[in-house]
């Protein structure tokens, strides 16, 4: 981590050029639930159009970290954050929260279709946002295609979303997030409730989406991190132990803790 920071300082002089390379920059982020400190001085830079994965044992703070990036923690009473989170060089805490959450989409561990039809699941957010009535059905189709779900659901758009399989529901949630064209997509263990087929469909999908979108994914599955991500961060007890490109991370981890974790000695 520190190595990367100094790299940046050497190669890039102005903040502007750093912002161009990095979609997201986090500096010294601390997170508290009441008196309990859940995250300790997290600093990280996420590259544009890349998949960055966060691994670590349960309760290590990786999900908490992800939830601060679209300020979802503000829905939890007693949660408090200090530190800097810059999206395209601008602090996310200065932005309007609704507008921020449209540029930073999120997909949860349990698929969360709304109690509406497949079509409405995507259209609802668009309509509230004031998207033109005539372009809504085009946008719905487009988003479902981007989420590789269109072929499976195009004949039953008016059916309830709960009639879909778990994997399809999760892709519907991804389509819903994509419909508003986010610049950053956060995925919190999106495959933990899915079977291997559903999982591999989502992993393929992530590799397609990253063409247009920067992706941060939390996973407890190291093989998944190795398969889909370009960069990987390892969290332990609220600290970011190591952050590196995925290949080096899994082949030559620099920290003993990382090595122990990825070789299965704990966690």
């Amino acid at each position, binding site marked *: 981590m520190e190595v990367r920071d100094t790299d940046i300082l050497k190669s890039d002089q102005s903040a502007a050029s750093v912002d161009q390379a990095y979609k997201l920059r986090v500096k010294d982020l601390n997170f508290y639930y009441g008196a309990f400190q859940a995250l300790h001085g997290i600093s990280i830079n996420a590259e544009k159009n890349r998949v960055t994965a966060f691994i670590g044992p349960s309760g290590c703070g990786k999900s908490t970290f992800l939830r601060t990036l*679209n300020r*979802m923690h503000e829905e939890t009473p007693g949660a408090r954050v200090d530190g800097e989170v810059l999206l395209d060089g601008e602090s996310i805490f200065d932005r309007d929260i609704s507008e921020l*959450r449209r540029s930073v989409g999120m997909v949860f561990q349990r698929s*969360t279709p*709304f*109690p*509406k039809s497949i079509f409405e699941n995507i259209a609802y*957010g668009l309509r*509230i946002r004031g998207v033109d009535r005539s372009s809504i059905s085009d946008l719905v189709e487009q988003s479902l295609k981007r989420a590789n779900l269109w072929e499976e659901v195009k004949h039953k758009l008016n059916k309830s979303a709960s009639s879909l399989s778990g994997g399809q529901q999760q892709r519907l949630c991804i389509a819903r997030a994509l419909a508003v064209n986010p610049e950053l997509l956060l995925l919190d263990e999106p495959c933990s409730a899915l079977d291997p087929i559903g999982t591999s469909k989502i992993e393929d999908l992530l590799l397609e989406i990253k063409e247009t979108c920067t992706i941060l994914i939390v996973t407890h599955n190291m093989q998944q991190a190795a398969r889909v991500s370009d960069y990987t961060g390892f969290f332990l007890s609220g600290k970011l132990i190591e952050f590196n490109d995925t290949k080096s991370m899994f082949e030559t981890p620099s920290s003993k803790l990382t090595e122990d974790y990825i070789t299965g000695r704990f966690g």
Partner: protein
Amino acid sequence: MATMVAEAPLTRPREKKARAGRGDRIYHILIKAIVGMVLAIFAGVFTVVVIGAWPAVKRFGLGFLIHTGWDPVHLVFGALPFIVGTILVALGAMILAAGIGLMTAVCITELLPRWLQAPVTYLIELLAFIPSVVYGLFGLLVLAPFLQDTVEVWIMEHLGPHFEVFNGAPYGVGYMSAILILAIMLLPLIVTLSREALVLVPRDVREGGYALGLQKWDVVWGIIVPYARNGILGSLVLALGRALGETIAVAMTIGGGYSLPKTVMDQGYTLASVIANEFNEVSSDMYLSALIYCGLILLVITVVVNILAYFLIRRLSGAHGFKA
């Protein structure tokens, strides 16, 4: 795993297994007996009511349902005003209580800080413990005089000349008092049960909405309330059952009257309250039988409404599959 399951009974002593079998059988018999008893009680009540109502049923037939007029001296009876009264009072109270109750439940779960949620819920639940006769007294001694001096006078003067339905005399007691008192009595039921349905909406669904950048209002009414729909409808069904059958509080506040209501301030009776108020004055067997016939109608209405509500909820949950 499979072998473990198979082995477990073998290691158990034989007599213990036999005893467990006997316990099971006794339990089954007991449970069936209890269920049978409950059904028998319902059948018994129904039979007694039908037998009691039979003379009136024979004499007035189904015409009882569509005739007005209540004359114990000449033995001319028609229950239409009471049926209409029951439906109007229940409907009016339900509309008020459902609107206010759902808003209150949403306010508790979505707007109040967590430390305030439990005490506020408890205070509203307390409303359910007040005996209905006390509500009746409150309606008779506090609410009715208040309405008589303020609201009803205003309505009569300002709305009366323009709308026939408001053109009544301010008696205080009457449909308006009964509807308001009943609405207050339904509130705790609707608030507590809808609140439970709202609380059960998974956090992920809630946050799924916020994650799209939706405002609280849109998340609550577009996602959370629809998700909790079945539980909320269930609370309304229970409240409706109570609204149709509530007796003493309505009897004390509705004033009494045997003709069809023309204005919101008229006095009248519901099926339940006419039985309560007239039962002590019964002067002939046919009079008594007519009152029991009213009870039979009420019983049938309640059962039919509940069955319809059951199918409504089943259809809604079947169409969308979201159980709350």
